[in-house]
């Protein structure tokens, strides 16, 4: 096959490209320039768009003896990922931009361009496994290395996208990948993993949003509605957050307080006890299924955050959902906490990804 290897400049994508070469594919390395202004993300090796990262990717491609190009996806990224991130926060939700990037950029804009240019597939360094089912469909499963498993951020991919994807690292642990990179002489073997949102390289999401959105004053209230203090913008808070609330006076029971709810219009942030964070029912919209859409009820597990726990759940899928209604309802068998609208709910059958949907509402466990 003719394969585009998306190379971020990190270890994983370099080894993934190397394995695609070993598998006999005709591989071309591509680094995605995702910033509108290529000089703006220059600060260090944390983001995926710095000049250093492009250079590291180029060196890895040299070492593999494959052609290498930089593709400018800055406009697509700004429109679909960055603007969406800002809009979601403005609406009081907590988006996952990596999911969005996979859905709209890596396995959409990049894949479409690759196919149009005569390539057959895109290979990435994501940790997930693809298997062909007896009926010919392609199943996506969790990676062997549960600590690195990235099937959650790939849960938005459809059959059509999976049919043109390669994840060469899914059957390997990160330790082995690092050792393999070192053995292959890939210079980035010891480069640290990236964790932050790539377009916010210093990790200060609140500061970045503050710059984009300007001050949007509101209040922090407790569960009774008592105003505890003013704040400069609700976007500085996420549901489940405990640190940095600066409430001054302790709660009556002396226990720590957490962000329970964010009301986007008024900017009211509600805080309360850990117990009040627990939710056991979710409503989700915009479902995307990896294969045939399930119907009716499904006993399964769900994951609600990248690297989050698995929760046992019963999922009800309504195939005839009109607009404004929940398409997927999730009953958690045990309560979960810190779940925010905007996050993705990825549905698993064992290790297999069934699909995903965006959480639109959560229902708190009745405290009794």
């Amino acid at each position: 096959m003719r394969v585009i290897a998306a190379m971020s400049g990190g270890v994983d994508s370099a080894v993934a490209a190397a394995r695609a070469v070993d598998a006999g594919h005709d591989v071309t390395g591509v680094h995605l320039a995702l910033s509108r202004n290529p000089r703006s993300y220059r600060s260090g090796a944390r983001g995926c768009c710095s000049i250093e990262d492009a250079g590291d990717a180029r060196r890895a491609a040299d070492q593999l003896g494959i052609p290498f190009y930089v593709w400018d996806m800055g406009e697509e990224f700004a429109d679909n990922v960055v603007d969406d991130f800002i809009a979601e926060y403005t609406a009081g939700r907590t988006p996952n931009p990596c999911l969005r990037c996979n859905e709209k950029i890596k396995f959409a804009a990049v894949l479409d361009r690759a196919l149009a240019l005569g390539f057959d597939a895109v290979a990435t360094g994501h940790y997930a496994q693809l298997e062909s089912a007896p009926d010919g469909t392609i199943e996506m499963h969790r990676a062997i290395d549960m600590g690195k498993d990235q099937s959650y951020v790939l849960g938005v991919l459809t059959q059509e996208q999976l049919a043109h994807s390669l994840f060469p690292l899914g059957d390997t642990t990160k330790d082995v990948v690092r050792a393999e990179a070192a053995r292959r002489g890939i210079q980035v073997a010891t480069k640290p993993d990236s964790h932050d949102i790539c377009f916010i390289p210093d990790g200060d999401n609140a500061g970045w949003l503050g710059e984009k959105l300007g001050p949007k004053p509101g209040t922090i209230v407790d569960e009774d509605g008592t105003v505890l203090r003013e704040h400069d913008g609700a976007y500085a808070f996420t549901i489940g957050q405990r640190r940095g609330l600066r409430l001054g006076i302790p709660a009556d029971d002396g226990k720590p307080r957490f962000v329970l709810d964010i009301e986007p219009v008024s900017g009211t942030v509600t805080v309360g006890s850990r117990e009040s964070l627990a939710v056991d029912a979710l409503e989700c919209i915009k479902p995307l299924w990896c294969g045939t859409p399930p119907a009716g009820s499904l006993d399964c597990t769900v994951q609600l955050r990248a690297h989050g726990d698995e929760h046992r759940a019963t999922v009800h899928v309504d195939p005839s959902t009109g607009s404004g209604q929940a398409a997927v309802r999730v009953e958690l068998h045990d309560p979960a906490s810190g779940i925010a609208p905007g996050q993705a709910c990825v549905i698993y059958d064992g290790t297999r990804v069934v699909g995903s949907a965006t959480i639109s509402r959560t229902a708190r466990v009745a405290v009794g």
Partner: protein
Amino acid sequence: MNNLQRVAYLDHAATTPMVPEAIAVMAEELARTGNASSLHASGRDARRTVEEARELIAERFGARPSEVVFCSGGTEANNLAIKGLYWSRRAQDPARNRIVFSSIEHHALLDPVTWLAKHEGAEIEMTPVDTTGRILIDELRAAVERDPASVSAVTTMWANNEMGTIQPVSEVVGVARAYDIPVHSDAVQAAGYVPLDFAASQLDAMTITAHKLGGPVGVGALLIRRELEATPLLHGGGQERDLRSGTLSVPLIAAFAAAVDVTVGRQAQTVEGIEALRRRLVEGIVRVVPDAIVNGDPEPGPDHRLPNIAHVTFPGCEGDAMLMLLDAQGIECSTGSACAAGVPQPSHVLLAMGYDDVAARGSLRFSLGHTSTEADVDRLLQALPAVHERAQRASLVRGGS
């Protein structure tokens, strides 16, 4: 051994293969030891090689040997010329704070000029161009004559590196000379392809580099009139009339001279062959891709355009997609524009010529040289229809996403 044997290399304006004579001289000199500034016999031998090279280059370009200042290449020569002249002239008279330059200069000149504006308070004035990429001399004249006493230097390249369009250098000199304003010209892309006579041009400074005319990368020269003062960029041992300190690279300089000797010596004959190849190329391109547009000045000749560059816009395509697809088939060309972090930016030259961003992105530069053959051109013409079709499809996908 030669990497170009397996590819159709159509990027000679980026760099062109060294002529065998230059390789031979360079290898010979690399095996010898001697600092051209040393006083002993080895030093004297090295110095002699350098001076013979200087004399040869001066002679081939109509300059006096003392006017040849060796340096590392085009970028350094341009920096030395524009910063050196600006600093020195402003020091003589603080009122001389303006630099008049053209909108189509190479980044090696554009960037030092904008640097001077940002860091030294220079007032910079850009001369616009027509749709073929030639500067509008009346605009330049108006800019100079508005306040001639405030101009520290005027600079206009000899031939544009993307379009190949030849600039009206003698007219520029005519404008500036009336006010004793020094004129510099970046002739990097022209040298070896059109006749250059420094004395006859009446320029004050001119940039040339070795690797565009069959010499090695890493050496070039600023031809600069003896009586003109310029502030050096590099201070040290005082080599090159104190304008450019640093131990002289005897092998590079000797190879530079050998390349100039060969290339300028047989220029008329080479150019004729290249012009014929270019005709085959552009006629072929518009035959296989009828909506392709050949940019720049269509007229051949040393007052119009370089013989070796063909700049083509493919409407509805992205140049970088075409480059990649051609590269995969061993056909090498350029998008003809600068990169930022590997991302091709829309060419400032095309934008200056009035093209929009989309057209600017959908262009390729094919450039021929002394090793180009009909087979190279035919290989491109054979691959082009399929490549063009694919790139068009990729561009549509993108527009629709």
